[in-house]
C-alpha cells in the first residue's frame, strides 16, 4: 500500500450505497452487536470476573467512535489514526479474551473435554477478525482487488472460527440432535470454497459456486436461529435461565453475518468487473 492510495481512500466520497460504506456499516454494527452478545454470554457467568466487562465497554466505545465513518465517508485523513487505534485495540481485546477463555478450564488439563466445556475460546477472535479487517481495508483502496481479497480472507477466517464454535458448542450437547451437524457441515464447505476462491480468484465457476454457498450459509443461519429458538422454548426452566443458558440464540446469525461480508466482497468484485478496463 502506498501513501498515495491511503490518501485516496481517505478522501473518497463514494456513492451513497457502495461496498465500502456497506463494509463500514458492517464493522460498526458487528462491533456494537458483539457488546450485546457478550453481555448475554457473560451474564451466564454472572460476570464472575471484572475483566468480563471490558469487551462490552470496548464494543460500545468502538462502535460509537466509528459511527462517523459510516455517516460521513468524506472524513479527514487524521481520523484514520482513530480507526487504526480501534482496530489495534480490537485485536488486543480479542487475543486477551481468547487467553482468558482458555484459562477458564483448558490450560488446567488441556484435554478435548476442557476445550469443549471451557468458555468458547474462538468467540473472542471475532474482535481480532474485526480489528484486522478494519486495519487492512483502510490500507487498501476501497473496492480494489486487494481490498476485496482482504474481505474474502476475513470471511474465510470468520467461517473457520464458526467451524470451531459450532463444533465445540454442539459437542457440549454431544450432537444429541443430528441437525446440530448442519452448522459444522455448512462452515466446513464455506471454508473450503472461500479458501479455493482466494487461491483461484479468476475461476468463474468457483466464484459462481461461492455465491450459492454464501446464500446457503445465510439460509442455514436463519434455520439455526429458528432451531435454537425452538430448543429454548422446549427446554424446561425459567425464561431467563433459558435465554442465558439455553442454545445461544444469536450464534447462528453469525452465518448470515459472514455471508454478508462475503457478499460485500463479491459485490466489489462485480463492480470492478463492470468498470471499463481503462477506467
Amino acid at each position, binding site marked *: 500500500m502506498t501513501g498515495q492510495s491511503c490518501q485516496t481512500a481517505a478522501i473518497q466520497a463514494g456513492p451513497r450505497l457502495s461496498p465500502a460504506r456497506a463494509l463500514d456499516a458492517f464493522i460498526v454494527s458487528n462491533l456494537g452487536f458483539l457488546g450485546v452478545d457478550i453481555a448475554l454470554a457473560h451474564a451466564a457467568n454472572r460476570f*464472575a470476573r471484572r475483566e468480563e466487562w471490558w469487551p462490552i465497554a470496548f464494543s460500545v466505545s468502538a462502535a460509537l467512535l466509528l459511527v462517523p465513518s459510516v455517516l460521513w465517508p468524506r472524513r479527514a485523513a487524521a481520523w484514520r489514526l482513530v480507526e487504526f487505534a480501534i482496530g489495534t485495540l480490537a485485536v488486543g481485546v480479542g487475543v486477551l479474551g481468547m487467553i482468558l477463555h482458555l484459562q477458564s478450564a483448558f490450560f488446567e488439563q488441556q484435554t478435548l473435554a476442557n476445550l469443549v466445556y471451557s468458555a468458547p475460546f474462538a468467540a473472542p477472535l471475532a474482535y481480532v477478525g474485526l480489528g484486522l479487517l478494519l486495519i487492512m481495508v483502510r490500507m487498501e483502496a476501497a473496492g480494489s482487488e486487494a481490498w476485496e481479497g482482504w474481505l474474502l480472507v476475513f470471511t474465510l477466517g470468520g467461517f473457520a472460527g464458526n467451524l470451531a464454535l459450532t*463444533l465445540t458448542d454442539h459437542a457440549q450437547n454431544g450432537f444429541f440432535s443430528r441437525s446440530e451437524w448442519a452448522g*459444522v457441515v455448512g462452515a466446513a*464447505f464455506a471454508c473450503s*470454497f472461500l479458501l*479455493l476462491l482466494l487461491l483461484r480468484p479468476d475461476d*468463474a*465457476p468457483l466464484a459462481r459456486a461461492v455465491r450459492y454457498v454464501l446464500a446457503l450459509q445465510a439460509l442455514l443461519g436463519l434455520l439455526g436461529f429458528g432451531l435454537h429458538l425452538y430448543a429454548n422454548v422446549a427446554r*424446561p426452566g425459567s425464561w431467563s435461565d433459558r435465554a442465558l443458558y439455553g442454545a445461544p440464540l444469536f450464534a447462528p446469525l453469525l452465518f448470515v453475518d459472514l455471508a454478508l461480508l462475503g457478499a460485500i466482497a463479491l459485490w466489489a468484485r462485480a463492480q470492478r468487473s463492470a468498470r471499463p478496463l481503462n477506467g
Partner: protein
Amino acid sequence: MVQFKWVFLAVFLGTALVVAALLINARRPSLERSQPEAVFVEATGKCAECHRRETSAVVHQFERSKHAAKGITCLDCHRPAAGQESQDHRGFVIAKQLTSKNCAECHSTEYEQFSRSRHAAPSWAAVNGVKDFSPAQLELGERFHQGWVNRPAMGIGAMEGPAALASGCNACHAIGKPNADGSFGSCTNCHSRHSASVALAREPTTCGQCHMGPDHSQLEIYGESKHGALFQAQRASMNMSADPKQLTTADMPVPTCATCPMSGLEGMKVTHDTTERLSYYLFAPVSLKRPNGDRGQAEMKELCAKCHVRDRIDRFYAAAEQVLVATNEKVKGATDVVAGLRAAGKLTKAPFDEDIEFKEFDLWHYFGRTAKHGAFMGGADFVQWHGNYELLKLRREIDIEAAELQHAAPVASADVPTLSAPPAIPVQAAAAPHAPSASGAPAASAR
C-alpha cells in the same frame, strides 16, 4: 467437467473437514456422547466448568470417585427425584435438596435396608419425637421398630434449647431425618457427598463422627480393642475400596466398625440395616434382646467365624452377656432407688431439676452403656474403669443422696414445674440374655 475442477476440490476439502470433525467427535469418551438426554451430556462438563471456580473441592472429590469412573454425571444425582422440590440452576433443573431418595434411584436395595434400620426413623425420633414424620414414614418406622418412632421428643434437648438441639443432637440424629419426599436422611453422612466413597464409610473415624464420647464410646472402644490395634498396624496394606459385594478377608483382614454389622465378607449378604446382626438393645438403660436378636447373633457369629473359631466366638459372647446381665442389675438397682424416692414424693415430677436425677442418668446413659459396649466390642478398659468402676461410684453417691432425701420433707406438688416433653427414661425389667425377646419401651436416646 474440467472447468469445475476447483469446485470439486472445494467439495472434497469441505467433505474432508466434516469427516475430520466426525472423527474428532467419535474419539470423545462415550460418557460425553452417549447419554439419555442432551442435558446429561452438558452435565458431564458444564457443571465442572463453573464449580472449578466456585466450589473447586467438590469437582476434585468427584473426579476421584468411583461414580466418575463409572460415567455418572452430576445431573444423575442432582436431578429432582419424585416428590422433590426443584430449582433452576444455570440452565439445569436440579433438586433443591438431595436426600437418600436420590441415591435410591440407583441403590434401591441399599436404601431399602437403610430405611428399616435404626439409623432411619428411630434415630430422628429419639431426639425429636414423632411430630416430623408423615403417616407413611411413621408406619414404616413402627413396622420395624415398634414403639421407637411413635414417641415423645427427648426432654433434655428441649431444656438445653434449640441451638444445642440443632448443632448438637440433630447433627448426628439427622441421619434418619424424615424428608419431605418420603425418604429418611442422607447417605452422605457416611459416604460423603461428591466422593461417594465406600472406603470412607469403612473408616472407623466415619462411624466415630457420631459413635463416640461418653454416651456411646464405640470409636474409643474400637481404638482400644485388638481389632483397632490391628487396623492401625495393617491399614496400609488393606483394600478399603473393595467392592462391597466381592469383599474378602484378603481385602480387609482386619474388621473396622462397619465390617461386623454390615459387610458382605466372603460371600455373606452385605446390608445397610446396621442393626440386622445385633443381639441386644445395648443403648437402653436395661438391655433386652432385640426381636430378631437370635437370628442377628447367628449372622454376626458367622461373620466372626471368618477370623475366629466357633468355640472362641461362643466364649466371647457368653462373657459379654454376663457383663450385660450384671450391668442390667446395677442399672435397675439404681433406677429403682430414684423411682422409689419419686413415688414417696421426695423428688419433683420434673426431670433434671435435682442432682440425683443427673446421677441416675449418667449411670445408665454413660457408664452402663460403656460397660456393655466395651464387653461386646472387646474393650476391657471400658468394661472396667470407664464402666463398672463408675457404676459402682455413682451407685454409692445415689445411695448416700437417697438416704438424705428419705429424711427430707416431701416436695410440694404445687412447686412442680412441667416440661412439654419430659424425657422418658423407662426402667425395664431386667431380662436374662436368652429371655423371650421384647422390644421394650423407648429410652431417652437411641444411639
